[in-house]
């Protein structure tokens, strides 16, 4: 009984200091936290620019359904639509024939997408018909991913793997180049001379 009491007495200061959970220990000289300032009134939600959206998406561990919907709306509309609202983005993709795809039209905004379903969406957006099996079965995740890997739109991997945010940005970039190439266009190349170039340089 005495030993149990000792154990309990030893555990109480540990739990109090937060050492079990590895919490940071407060330094004795640390000043007391200032009282929290009153929270500002919620401003109207600002829609981030497409540059901000893609830059921040690049650092996400996993791309979510809301990210995919917005990226596809920007891609399909060639930058004309923002796609910030998830439901509006899905409605827009319905009008463009990208949805229903069997996944994005039922997904919640916070659901992570996998490579197979992203490949399905890419194939539907770009109108990729695929090989024999894909023509027979439609753009199912497995064959859509194989087709996207063949066309160098996506990196190889299992169709059930989650997609990192940076990978989604890269897929959108490659898909846009693919679309331009299909239309017989080329992305603009760098032209001109730097200010320090010698005169008469080619």
């Amino acid at each position: 009984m005495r030993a149990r009491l000792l154990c309990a007495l030893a555990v109480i200061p540990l739990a109090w200091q937060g050492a079990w959970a590895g919490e940071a220990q407060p330094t004795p000289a640390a000043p007391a936290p200032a009282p929290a300032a009153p929270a500002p009134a919620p401003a109207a939600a600002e829609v981030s620019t497409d540059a901000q959206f893609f830059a921040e998406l690049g650092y996400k561990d996993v791309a979510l359904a809301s990210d995919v919907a917005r990226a596809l709306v920007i891609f399909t509309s060639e930058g004309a639509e923002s796609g910030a609202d998830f439901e509006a983005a899905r409605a827009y993709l319905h009008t463009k024939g990208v949805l229903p795809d069997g996944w994005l039209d039922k997904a919640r905004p916070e659901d992570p997408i996998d490579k197979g379903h992203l490949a399905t969406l890419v194939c539907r957006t770009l109108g990729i018909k695929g090989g024999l099996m894909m023509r027979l079965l439609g753009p199912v995740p497995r064959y859509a991913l194989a087709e996207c890997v063949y066309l160098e739109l996506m990196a190889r991997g299992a169709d059930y793997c989650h997609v990192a945010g940076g990978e989604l940005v890269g897929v959108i970039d490659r898909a846009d180049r693919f679309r331009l190439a299909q239309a017989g266009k080329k992305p603009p190349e760098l032209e001109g001379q730097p200010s320090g170039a010698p005169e008469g340089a080619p």
Partner: protein
Amino acid sequence: MNRAMLALACTLVAVSLSARVLGGDAAAPPAPAAGQDQEPPGEKIPATVKTVEGTVETRPSVGQPWVAVQVGQQLAEGADLRTGFRARCVLDLSDSLVQVDPLTVVRIGGLRKDGGTVHTRLIIKQGNTQADVEKGRIKSDFAIVTPSATLSVRGTRGIRAGHFQGLGSNFQLLHAGSILLTGPLGHATPLAPGQQTNNPGLSAMNFLSQQHQNPAMDNRGLEQMEQNACNRHNNPMPLPPVSPLGSGPTQNLGSLQQEMPGLVYTGPPAPVIPDNNHGNDHGPEYEP
């Protein structure tokens, strides 16, 4: 039984005290890294924005707000640029032209003039760039840094470099000239006109970062969100440009110098990477 309980209680008290001591150590401010406050030589020169197409934003440094870029605006060393969908921007860096392609985040890591030499370091965090480096009266020390390789250039036109997380890096030389790719471990690969290379898997780097600590990471150019992303993916952050002729395992540098006699490295010294594998660059030898 009671003695065992007493021993357990003593152990718990000792753990509590040691956690307190360790916590105090962790709360101490970190010592500044050696050489972190050393200013590189040379005078800072600005980059001038020549053309803008679509949504292009910049910020002077980490923590500053992003603002839209205007034609003619001058960007200093340390500025970040990001572009939106089908947005482009061309920068005049005195001795070179750089086009920042769509969906790109790039930092002007260094832009200085030291005597007759312009030192340029572009850090690609994500996306693609094209560059032309003029070979003229200005001597160029131009390098593009991506998380997986560093590209060094002298007098070359039609350089393409890109990097996306999960898709790897891609380097291409379209026109005449020569570029040299240097991996994080010092491997150097020359690229001839018309050639391109990519590393879609980054498997060697992933392997090494899983087996060892990430080598020589430089977090000065990255904010916390970016550092977290890099750490999650076991992906090394952009390294400072290493010397193409610097220390690194297993590379016949003499032949490279013969192939590219104009290549002279004038940047900072290469980080010293310990070679514990006796020149075996396929990872550590298995030791049961």
